[in-house]
């Protein structure tokens, strides 16, 4: 009756289910993405677009927008796991906690990457950004997103069961992601030839961040599901 299932089977199952949910409910596509584009517009209102401030600050604004959208995506992603007794049901299945974690991270990473792709088109059109140094940009986007999803899933799951989760998650998560914001922003600036330094150390730092939190999250998800 119980054929052996590995951690990666569980991860795949979870990720598939999350993407299925997104396809059905379209919260990311229908709500988070428009919000992110709205933020791009708000930045233009706040920072005079004619004086070049906007153009200079584009990488930073891009990643700040991604962070805020990530918080919303995480709220949604773990909100639906804590409704209707789903967390209890997941514990009853005997799925591996690390598998659940990696599945959530995979789905989150894919969703956020898609959001970033659309936002990139957004800044290209609205802020007149010319993309150069594409390989570095892609590596930075991927590692940064993996880090955001990896750290975010731990705190998303932790906050999901608390009544004050809407206010608590940003407070917990955003300071944790400060190095991601710094590294991704600087890395993108370098890539867009705004600074004369090589951007690969930033990509490496992002990679280390992602690796550290993916490892930690895989271990911490068991106590998180069991007792938190």
């Amino acid at each position: 009756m119980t054929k052996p299932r590995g951690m990666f089977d569980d991860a795949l199952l979870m990720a598939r289910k999350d993407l299925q949910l997104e396809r059905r409910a379209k919260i990311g596509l229908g709500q988070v993405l428009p919000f992110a584009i709205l933020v791009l517009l708000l930045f233009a209102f706040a920072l005079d677009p004619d004086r070049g401030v906007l153009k200079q600050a584009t990488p930073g604004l891009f990643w700040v927008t991604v962070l805020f959208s990530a918080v919303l995506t995480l709220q949604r992603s773990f909100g639906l796991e804590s409704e209707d007794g789903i967390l209890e049901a997941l514990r009853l299945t005997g799925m591996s906690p690390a598998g659940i974690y990696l599945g959530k991270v995979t789905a989150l990473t894919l969703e956020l990457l898609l959001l970033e792709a659309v936002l990139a088109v957004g800044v290209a059109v609205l802020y007149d950004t010319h993309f150069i140094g594409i390989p570095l940009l892609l590596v930075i986007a991927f590692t940064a997103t993996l880090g955001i999803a990896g750290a975010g899933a731990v705190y998303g799951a932790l906050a999901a069961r608390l009544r004050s989760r809407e206010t608590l998650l940003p407070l917990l998560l955003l300071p944790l992601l400060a190095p991601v914001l710094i590294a991704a922003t600087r890395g993108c600036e370098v890539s867009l030839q705004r600074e004369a330094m090589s951007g690969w150390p930033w990509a490496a730092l992002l990679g280390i961040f992602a690796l550290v939190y993916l490892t930690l999250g895989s271990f911490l998800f068991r106590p998180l599901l069991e007792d938190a």
Partner: protein
Amino acid sequence: MSALVHLRSAVALIGRFPALAGVDLDVYPGEILLLQGPNGAGKTTLLGVCAGLIGLTSGQAVVLGEDLTANPRAVRRRVGLLGHDSFLYQDLSVVENLDFWSRAAAATVQDGRAALERLGVSSRLFDLPVYSLSAGQRRRVSFAAMICRRPELWLLDEPHAGLDSSGRDLVDGLMAEASASGATVLFASHELDRAEHIAHRSVTISGGVIIADSPRATELGSEP
């Protein structure tokens, strides 16, 4: 016959509130045990404890031969819990839910479909999202998600609630069938006439303790 569920002085807290205040309970293999008591008596908490979801603050709990405080995970995958919550993703369709939950519990997709059929869920509902189902239909889908994993211990929290009369009969039939095939059923209910008819034995819980244990001399002895 050794007990399948064995609780001694079980104390369980919900937050800081002692929902169970020292429960002694034995449930024997193959038994259908009715758990009755007023609202807030601790029925739901007791089922949660037996499922390995709620840890004990003090006391002893052995379920399916496993010590719950030491190894709750071994118990969880062998029990089926039908709770107040639906345990379903509202935005996914009925089959998507069943596919996910059956595979998550290491059963096959076919098990899930068979369970839906067994619960009388019409195939025209299969592709509807769960939120659009009526309460009774949703209950049947939850039930299907529970039995598709073939649990050894059924923990049912008011299994008749929200169901029409054919649904109630169906639930009774499923419980009898489970008991006949060797599974054990522990269910909480307020519908005592119906419940006492199907149950082999009933216990009453109130104020977080068992206050009455009334064996029904039936085909299945409750004590060795």
